[in-house]
């Protein structure tokens, strides 16, 4: 049996339910521009009809409807798309960092330009050519010192720049771990809150949105793996370490950066390796130029000031022939071309004689700290040479006059050999570089080309990841985003339903009025 007031109850339920639906529309519209918000839906169901099966059922026909109620308010979201977005987002973040690093390195090397390392090296080689044109010319010597100092200064400043980049990377790694810790702390707090709030018919929609947004942010920093537990909490693993489990979060330190496989953190670590690689390659170039083993032929012959061993048979001025591999006594005048094995630019310069009194064995470059190994950071022009241009040993001949050595000023045998260092095919240290052999210029060009390939690759990867992240984000928006037109249409729908329910209640009211106040009064 239905109650007399059944109609009133049905209409009331409709009014209340449509009101909730309208409120939710309002909530959606308010959050149309909120980042990470997913649209919410009121799930309406018809209430249980009369009569439900029980011990006693009336014989009344039909199942009479009893109105509407909502059993939950849910957010519309696809966790698979979240997964996709985060995967692309962490790759994007990594490549963005790499691209920035390569851009910085490219800026540092400043190629192609008239002021980059290539231009400075060109200048250095050219001033050797000027020196060779007239070895006794003072201005040629000053020019060479200027070009050499410019070369070492440029190398030193590249070293400084690389160091700056690595220290920036280091501080970024620290800052990122702090961010990760703060995010995981918040996620753990939200885990606790969501568990407390959620129960039968209770969905913590907005809290879940917040938590997902935090995970999105986390995915920019490091590779993140999320599993949803039965109690609704997230268990989060970053870089192989479980950082959030239930209500608890574990603080991490910079040590985990090495295990990161993507995200900014991995980008920083990989950038670090790339910067070090750049430094190693340039060090290989510098140390090969200055001390790499090379064979040099002094075509005009040479005057020895110390016992030496030539590679070929040489004839001395007195007619003796000294076979290759045997010691040539000090003070010999060689009159045939002589091939010597020397240790790079420095080794060759050590053979030459300064003006006027034929000092010898002076290295052209020295290290700042006295190390035997030359690097882009410690290479300097030997202060002895820098402070006295006469100490540039361009000559390979001297004479004894009045018991003293006097250099043949116009002799340019050593300066000539020094200009040829540019074309000498060196063997580069295999533990530092993949380029086996080539001239110094070749090496630098190959190095810059390689850097360009890496940088180009990083830029391409950023663009690809950007597109993928963008399309994942678009798909997420397609599912979860608020469409204002849709909400407005819904608003009209619920408004009409609300109005109609009110109208229905009025009708029931009139019906009851008819029975109670106007029925059975005939003859009164």
């Amino acid at each position, binding site marked *: 049996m239905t109650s007399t007031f059944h109609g009133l109850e049905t209409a009331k339920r409709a009014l209340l339910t449509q009101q909730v639906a309208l409120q939710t529309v309002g909530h959606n519209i308010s959050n*149309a*521009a909120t980042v990470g918000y997913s649209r919410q839906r009121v799930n309406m169901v018809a209430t249980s009809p009369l009569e439900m099966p029980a011990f006693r059922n009336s014989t009344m026909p039909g199942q009479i409807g009893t109105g509407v109620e909502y059993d939950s308010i849910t957010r519309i979201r696809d966790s698979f798309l979240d997964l996709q977005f985060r995967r692309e987002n962490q790759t994007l973040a990594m490549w963005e960092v790499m691209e920035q690093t*390569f*851009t910085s390195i*490219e*800026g540092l*090397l400043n*190629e*192609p330009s008239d002021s980059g390392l*290539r*231009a400075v090296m*060109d200048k250095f*080689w*050219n001033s050797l*050519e*000027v020196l*060779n*044109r*007239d070895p*006794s010319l003072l201005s040629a010597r000053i020019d060479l010192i200027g070009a050499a100092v410019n070369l070492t200064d440029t190398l030193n400043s590249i070293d400084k720049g690389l160091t700056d980049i690595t220290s920036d990377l280091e501080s970024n790694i620290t800052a990122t771990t702090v961010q990760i810790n703060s995010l995981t702390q918040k996620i753990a707090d939200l885990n606790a809150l969501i568990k407390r709030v959620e129960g039968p018919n209770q969905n913590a929609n907005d809290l879940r949105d917040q938590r997902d947004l935090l995970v999105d942010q986390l995915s920019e920093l490091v590779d993140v793996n999320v599993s949803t537990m039965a109690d609704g909490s997230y268990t989060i693993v970053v870089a192989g370490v479980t950082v959030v489990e239930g209500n608890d979060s574990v603080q991490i330190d910079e040590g985990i950066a090495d295990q990161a496989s993507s995200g900014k953190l991995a980008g920083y670590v990989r950038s670090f390796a790339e910067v070090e690689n750049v430094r190693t390659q340039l060090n290989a170039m510098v140390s090969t130029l200055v001390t790499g083993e090379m064979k040099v032929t002094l*075509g*005009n012959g040479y005057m020895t000031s110390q016992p030496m061993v030539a590679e070929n048979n040489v004839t001395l001025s007195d007619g003796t022939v000294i076979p290759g591999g045997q010691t040539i006594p000090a003070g010999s005048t060689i009159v045939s071309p002589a091939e010597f094995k020397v240790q790079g630019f420095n080794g060759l310069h050590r053979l030459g004689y300064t003006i006027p009194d034929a000092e010898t064995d002076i290295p052209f470059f020295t290290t700042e700290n006295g190390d035997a190994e030359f690097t882009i950071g410690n290479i300097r022009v030997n202060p002895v040479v820098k402070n006295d241009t006469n100490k540039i040993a361009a*000559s390979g*001949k001297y004479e004894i006059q009045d018991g003293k050595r006097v250099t*043949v*000023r*116009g*002799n*340019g045998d050593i300066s*000539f050999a020094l*200009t040829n260092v540019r*074309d000498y095919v060196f063997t580069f240290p295999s533990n530092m570089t993949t380029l086996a052999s080539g001239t110094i*210029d070749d090496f*630098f*060009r*190959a190095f*810059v*080309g*390689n*850097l*360009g*390939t890496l*940088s*180009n690759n*990083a*830029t391409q990867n950023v663009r690809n990841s950007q597109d993928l992240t*963008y399309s994942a*984000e*678009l798909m997420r*928006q*397609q*599912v979860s*985003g608020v*469409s*204002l*037109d*849709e909400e*407005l*249409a819904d608003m*009209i729908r619920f408004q009409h339903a609300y109005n109609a329910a009110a109208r229905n209640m009025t009708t029931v009211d009139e019906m009851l009025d008819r029975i109670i106040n106007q029925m059975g009064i005939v003859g009164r």
Partner: protein
Amino acid sequence: MRVTSMMQNTQLLQNLRNNNRDIIDWQNKLATGQRIHRPGDDPVGIGYLMRYNSELNRSSEFLENAQTGLGYLNTMDELMQQSSDVLKRARVLVQQAANGTMPDDNRKQVALEIQQLKEQLVMIGNSTFAGRYLFNGQKTDVPPYSKTSPHLDQTDAGVIFMNVSPSVSVPISLTGEQIFGQAGTANNVFQVFDDILAHLNGNQPDELAKDLEKIDQCADRISNCWAEIGARTNRLELVENRIEDQIITLQKLRAEVGSVDTAEVIIQLQQKENVLQASISVGARIMQVSLVDYLR
């Protein structure tokens, strides 16, 4: 497909970002005229570009070397001309003096002029180019011949070379002894002059007749050197032309790798600009449309 307002927004922003990135890229190319601004723009091209730049820088040095060498040789050429003239004059004088009919006093006068000619030759032997003594091998800071005994002065045997390409260096200098004869020998031009002077002062016309032959030998030697200088000048002029051609070729190659095709870039830029304008105006128009405007 469900389209939400946020999607429209995101897409418009993404498109604007892409268009602007391209425009900035082309703009930069157009403004600088350079196609490659950093190694990443063209990892292969940058290698060529750097090579061409280096080669160009280097070529200008080789060109200067060749020009310096030519300067050297031209000076030497003039000096050979002068030496030859001196010897010609000496030959005329000696020929006159060798004639037995010439009075002894006249021979003294001839001797005076021969003395002047000898000093002239010493001066030629001590000539400099750009402050460097030409005929003393590599001892460019020491004059080769003394005034008192030039016939005994040994010149340095060193040779001055000029680099004209990475593997080619050309000898430039000739030593005094190559031109004026070995020190201390009878053929040395200064020794010949000394002999002539002695014969003139001693009135020995027969000896003077023999001296004529020696003058001819000296003149031959100088002519040979002169020819050698001419040959070297030719070679260096060829080299100079080759380097100049090479510079033009290199500049062309560099332009092909590194420079932008202005017409192409302007068209590209125009296209990108059109797309940008379209995306802005479409975006602005679509985003304005909303159901709100049509609800009472």
